[in-house]
Every structure is written in structure tokens, then in C-alpha cells.
């Protein structure tokens, strides 16, 4: 137990002391303030028809717990995934593999550590929700249990399941990050939308949100029986009048709900157990197909090391072309073949379906498929420990840095090529420009966030969030002009790109000077 505690502590501290964690804390604060809008705000995060709750303890406690459960199960996954990969990259895994730590202990420590990271974020949201209660409640009494109970019954079990699922998928699909993400997203949305509130089938509600939302809905329906009380969750624009803010009664969680949440915790532990049986224990080369590679690697027959045989005339060149070509090769190799196959399908589809559908739905998806390529466009030097080579290369900032942006952009444009041709042929010049600016934006965003955090995580989380909003046609996240078609919008996008480039460049310059 003592050993287990120290492994978990070590893992957690490793993350908690990183710069990424600071950003995570900042993001958590942002989310916490966002999910409980001020009474004067022009948006709501949860409403039932035209009604919402008055800011008493029961409403703020319940809504913050529900939204934290949904948001953290979606974005939190991206934050914590890759914990085993980090041990492989840092070579700690090889040491762990030779210790007496069992597979199940190791997997469990990873699950617990992931859980603690998510719990830290939840803790921040919890504290902020109480602070916001005192700011917004307008005389309602403070009841601590109305905050604690929803968090314990709804959010905490959900986070444990997410923590376990992240480890399970990483074990199941090692080296296939996109596949891990894809499977998780499919599962997440399937479970979110297909779960029921029927007591006999309670176990399908993984997130534990259906029963509490039904309770809220029923209360409002009782007071306004003739009104539509359909649930809407998200950033919903519009203000709700004071008379439509209903004081919600506290929910007493029934025993079956408690059992249901316990069931999911046990399921998460079982998932961890299955993962421990499938775990590669850091023998990753074996799984890559050792027989193929070792047969091709010859034994050392001779060691020449003769200087006279090594020399050959070369030329000094400052051309960026070889660097861009090399970067493109590096990027192309990063993705698995099946990702390219899906990308190709998407590209072909863009040639056949309408420009609007291609622009609004297919393009953001096929670009998102390249998330693994762009997310470490800057940080790969640190994760792969090639930074000594890149830092001591000739003019790294004006050559290598620029080449990476150009290569990333070329790739984005290549993927968008069928759509670009289509909109060009239809004479839609604004859409043509916006797609090019969008390609530049997504690469520059990856470069900027990579330079800022030296990690790929923040970009991946943000990119996913942006794509999710794109598919829901949220106008503010339209970085490639799918829902805007004015020239003024193109100018704004260009300005945004310029700011991103300048910020990323200054960050890299600062790194170089330090």
C-alpha cells in the first residue's frame, strides 16, 4: 500500500508541477466561471424550455456538478490520455518493467493518478461554484450538502470511469492515439445520448446525468404544466426573465442511483483489470513486429570509421526547400495508414458532395484527423529529445521554425485541395480565401500552443473543442469561414493569424535567447 501511494504521488506530482497543470488550473477556473453565468449574463448553460433555476444551493450545486461531469468526461479525457506513453518516452517504463510492480498495480496507479488530476479540476470548479453562490444567490440560504452530494454522486464516479477508460484505451491501442480518441468519442456520444432514465436500465447512464436532469425537468413541469420543458445544455444565447427562474427543491438521491454509480466504479476497476492483462509492460518493440525488423538489421561485420572514405563535396545552402520537404515527410510518416485512408475518403467525399456540406462538416473532420501531426509540431523536439540538434542548427528560428509552419500549412491545404478547387470553380472567392486562412490558423494555433506549453495537450483539447463547435455551427469558432462569408471576416481571420504567428515567433525567440 505504501509503495502504491508513492507511485501515485510521484505520478501526480510529475504532472502537478508542470506548466501544463498551471494552464489546466487556469482553464478550470474559466470553465467554472463559465458554467454558472451571472444573473445578468446574456447566456445560460442549462435551461428547460424557457425556464431555468433560481440561484439557490440546490440549483448551483446540481448544475455545476452536472456540467462538470459532462465537460470533464469530454475534455478531461484528452488531458489525461497518454500517461503510459509518457513513461515510455521518459524511459521510466523500462525501469518499471523490471520491478516487482504488478501490471494491475501499475495500471491502477495510472487510473488513480488520472482520477486525481481530474479531481483537482473538479475541486476547483466545486470551490468556485460555492464562491459564485455567495455572489449570485440573492438571499437564498447556503446548504453545503446541496453542493457536496451532487458532486459525489454524479461527477466523482464519472471522473473515475473516464480515468479508467483513458488507460484502457491506451493499453488496447498502443501507438494509435487517433484510434484511442476516435473510440472514446464514439463511446462518449453514444452513451450520452442513448442512456435512459428508466430505473430498470439505469446502468446505461454512465455520466449519471439523466436522473438528476429529469428531476429538474419534472419540478419545472409541475409548476408550468402547459409549457415545453425540453432540456438544452451548452452555451445558449439569450436572457431568461426573473419570473422564469424557478427555485429548485433539493434532490434526495435514491438507493438505486447510488448502486448504479457504484456499479460504474466497479466496472472501471474491472476495465483496469482487463487492461492489466493486455498491458505490454513496456515491451513495445515486440508488439511493433520485431521479427520483421531484426531480420533486416545485420550484425556488425566491420567498423570502418575511415575519415577519408566519409568525405564528399557538399554545398552550403540556406534554401528552405529541403527543410520543408523533410518536414512534410516527417509529418506524413507520423500518421498511421488507416488515418490516411480515412483522410483520403474525406478528400474524395469533398469532391462529390455539396460545397456547403464539405466546408461545414467534412473539412473540419479531415483536418481533425491530422491532430497528431500538428499537435507536436513544436514540442516534438522535447518529447523525442532532438532539441540539441534543432537548437544548434543553422538559423533555427528563421529556417526550421518557418519550415515547420509552411510544411504544416501545405499539408492542410493539400487535404482541403478538392474543396478549394470546387469553391474556386464556383467563383466563391471569399470561401477560397477563408479555407486558406483556416489552414494557416490551425497550424499557427498548434505552433503557438506548442511553443507556449512545450506540450501537445492543450492544442489537442482545444482543437477537439473547436471541431465540436464547428460541427454544431457555433459561429465564434468558425476559423475557416464555414458560416461566415464576408470579406471583413477574412480580414479578421488574417489579423488573427498574424497575431498568432507573431506571438509564436516571440515565444520561440525568447526560448532561444534563454
Amino acid at each position, binding site marked *: 500500500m505504501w509503495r502504491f501511494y508513492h507511485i501515485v504521488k510521484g505520478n501526480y506530482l510529475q504532472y502537478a508541477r508542470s506548466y501544463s497543470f498551471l494552464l489546466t488550473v487556469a482553464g478550470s477556473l474559466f470553465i467554472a466561471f463559465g458554467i454558472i453565468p451571472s444573473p445578468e449574463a446574456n447566456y445560460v448553460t442549462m435551461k428547460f424550455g424557457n425556464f431555468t433555476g433560481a440561484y439557490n444551493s440546490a440549483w448551483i450545486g446540481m448544475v455545476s456538478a452536472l456540467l462538470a461531469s459532462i465537460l470533464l468526461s469530454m475534455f478531461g479525457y484528452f488531458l489525461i490520455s497518454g500517461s503510459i506513453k509518457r513513461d515510455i518516452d521518459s524511459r521510466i517504463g523500462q525501469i518499471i518493467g523490471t520491478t516487482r510492480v504488478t501490471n494491475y498495480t501499475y495500471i491502477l496507479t495510472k487510473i488513480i493518478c488520472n482520477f486525481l488530476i481530474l479531481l483537482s479540476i473538479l475541486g476547483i470548479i466545486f470551490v468556485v461554484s460555492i464562491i459564485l453562490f455567495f455572489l449570485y444567490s440573492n438571499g437564498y440560504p447556503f446548504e453545503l450538502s446541496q453542493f457536496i452530494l451532487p458532486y459525489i454522486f454524479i461527477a466523482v464516479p464519472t471522473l473515475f470511469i473516464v480515468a479508467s477508460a483513458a488507460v484502457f484505451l491506451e493499453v488496447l491501442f498502443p501507438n494509435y492515439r487517433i484510434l484511442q480518441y476516435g473510440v472514446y468519442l464514439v463511446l462518449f456520444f453514444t452513451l450520452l445520448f442513448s442512456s435512459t432514465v428508466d430505473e430498470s436500465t439505469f446502468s446505461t447512464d454512465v455520466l449519471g446525468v439523466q436522473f438528476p436532469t429529469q428531476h429538474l425537468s419534472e419540478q419545472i413541469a409541475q409548476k408550468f404544466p402547459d409549457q415545453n420543458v425540453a432540456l438544452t445544455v451548452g452555451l445558449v444565447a439569450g436572457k431568461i426573465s426573473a419570473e422564469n427562474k424557478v427555485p429548485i427543491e433539493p434532490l434526495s438521491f435514491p438507493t438505486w442511483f447510488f448502486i448504479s454509480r457504484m456499479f460504474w466504479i466497479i466496472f472501471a476497476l474491472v476495465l483496469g483489470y482487463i487492461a492489466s492483462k493486455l498491458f505490454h509492460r513496456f515491451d513495445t*518493440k515486440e508488439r*511493433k513486429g520485431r521479427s520483421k*525488423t*531484426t531480420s*533486416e*538489421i*545485420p550484425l*556488425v*561485420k*566491420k*567498423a*570502418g*570509421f*575511415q*575519415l*577519408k*572514405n*566519409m*568525405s*564528399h*563535396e*557538399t*554545398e*552550403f*545552402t*540556406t*534554401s528552405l526547400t*529541403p*527543410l520543408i*520537404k*523533410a518536414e512534410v*515527410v*516527417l509529418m506524413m*510518416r*507520423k500518421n498511421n495508414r488507416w488515418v490516411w485512408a480515412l483522410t483520403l475518403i474525406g478528400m474524395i467525399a469533398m469532391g462529390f458532395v455539396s460545397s456547403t456540406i464539405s466546408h461545414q462538416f467534412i473539412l473540419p473532420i479531415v483536418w481533425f484527423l491530422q491532430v497528431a501531426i500538428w499537435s507536436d509540431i513544436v514540442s*516534438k523536439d522535447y518529447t*523525442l*529529445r*532532438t532539441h*540539441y*540538434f*534543432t*537548437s*544548434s*542548427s*543553422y*538559423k*533555427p528560428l528563421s*529556417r*526550421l521554425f518557418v519550415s515547420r509552419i509552411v510544411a504544416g500549412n501545405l499539408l492542410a491545404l493539400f487535404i482541403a485541395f478538392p474543396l478549394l478547387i470546387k469553391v474556386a470553380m464556383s467563383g466563391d472567392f471569399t470561401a477560397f480565401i477563408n479555407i486558406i486562412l483556416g489552414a494557416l490558423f490551425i497550424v499557427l494555433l498548434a505552433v503557438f500552443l506548442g511553443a507556449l506549453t512545450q506540450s501537445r495537450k492543450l492544442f489537442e483539447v482545444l482543437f477537439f473543442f473547436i471541431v465540436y463547435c464547428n460541427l454544431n455551427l457555433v459561429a465564434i469558432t468558425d476559423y475557416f469561414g464555414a458560416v461566415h462569408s464576408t470579406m471583413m471576416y477574412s480580414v479578421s481571420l488574417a489579423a488573427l493569424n498574424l497575431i498568432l504567428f507573431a506571438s509564436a515567433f516571440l515565444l520561440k525567440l525568447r526560448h532561444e*535567447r*534563454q
Partner: protein
Amino acid sequence: MQLTIQNLTKKYGKNKIGLNDYSLEISSGILGLLGPNGAGKSTLIKMISSISKPSEGKIFLNEEDIVKSPNYIRKQLGYLPQDFGVYPHLNAYEFLSYMAAMKGIGGKGLQQKITNLLEELNLIESAKNQLGTYSGGMIQRVGIAQALLNDPKIIIFDEPTVGLDPEERLRFRDLISDLATDRIVILSSHIVSDIESIADEVAIMKKGHLLAKGIQEKIIKLVENKVFVTTIHKSDIPEFKANNMVVSSYRSDDKFKIRYISDSPHASSNLAEPSLEDAYIYLTKS
């Protein structure tokens, strides 16, 4: 070629000093850098190779201030870091082409140059395999190849023989000697014998300071008439080690042959021929 380091200091935060008021002049030839962990060897190497900047002091290469103009040295630098990685999805050809592009090397002869390097470093038959499948020794040879790609005038090898087999290690020493005829080669290693056999000059460092620098004979002279050999029983070793500066010990039957440094030798000790290792131990443990 002349590399001049003037009063170089590297501070990490307020209190931690990686290198303290360090000055050195290096001409063509091999300079061996010796020092225990934390001596500041890697800190010095990173500053010479323009990866990090000094807190104080200057570095000149042929009278050009490379702290202000890092690209001057980058253009003619070959650097093999101690702990480096590679891009696992590239093969050796692609990786070296990429490195060449980063260094600004091109032209029609580039592919031939890469082929020559791969052949001489015994990587040609696996050159089409992805680097992720290479062994540690093979990666080390890829690292050596990238360091020599641009026909560098100043070469820095940080622990270069790690992962090489004994035969490769000997041949690599010869290669370094060949390189040093008209270049500056800085060789950092924990293995004194690697440096002893090839370095023209040796610099011994400890806790960010330069303890001694010069030709090997001059450094070895510091322990002249101070190195002795004696034979003692196994049970006496702990006490002997506690009171003497022991360089090495070899088992001989049930006794141990001890090589140690002292101004006042024990009875039955024989004076020994001093070596670079003796001088290194003497300077760093004093």
C-alpha cells in the same frame, strides 16, 4: 582555428552556479574534458554549441563572438550530444537528409556523402529501416554520422563511445585523431582511458571550476612521486580506503593490490608510474 572562452559563468536561478568564471583557450587538436557528474562539462558544451547562453562572459571562435552571433559556430559545428533522440518514423537516410537540411547542407554530393557516412559507420544495410527499430549502438552511430555531415571545423563529442562495441570504440578513437589534424575536437567523457589515449590537451573540471588544463604530461606531473602500489588483506580495505586516496584495487588471490595517492606512503609500498587517471582522482578528490 582558435576557440577562446573568457570568464564564462552560468547561473541557474539565484544560487545555483553551473559554471563559474571559466576561461580556456583551445586550438586545433583534441581537448579532453574530464570531471565528475555536476562538474559543469555539459553546461560548458551547451554554451559552446550555442544551445544555451552564458550568464556572464564571452566565447570567441576565430575572434567572432559566438554568444552574439551563434550562427557563426552553428555553420561549422558538429555536435554529438550525450543524451539525444531521433525521429523514430524516419529511416537513417531520411534522418541524415533532414539533419543536413537543418545544417544548411545540400548540393548534388549530399546523397553520396550520406551513403559514405552510413557505409563507414556500418549502417548501410539497415539504412532503409525506421530508426525506431535501431539498437542503442546503432543510434549512437547515426548520431556520429550527423555530427560529421557538414565537414565541421569544430566538433564536440559528449560521451561518444557509449553503446559502441570494443572494436568500434578503438576505430572511433582513430577517427577522432584523424579529425583533429585541422579541426578543434572537444571530447567529454567519464572514461579516462578514452581521453588518455588521444587527447592532446586535457581540462579537468569540478563544481563549475577549471582545476587544471594542459598537455597530459603537465597534468600527470602533479602526482609525480605520489602514486604508490601496495598489497593488503581484504579485511583491511575499509580502513585503508578511509585514510587514503585510493585510485583502484585489484584482487590477487586472497589479497588486494591497491593503487593509491599519498604524500607519505605506507611501509611496503612501491612507487608507481603516474597516469592521467591518478591525476584526475588527485585533483577531483582533493
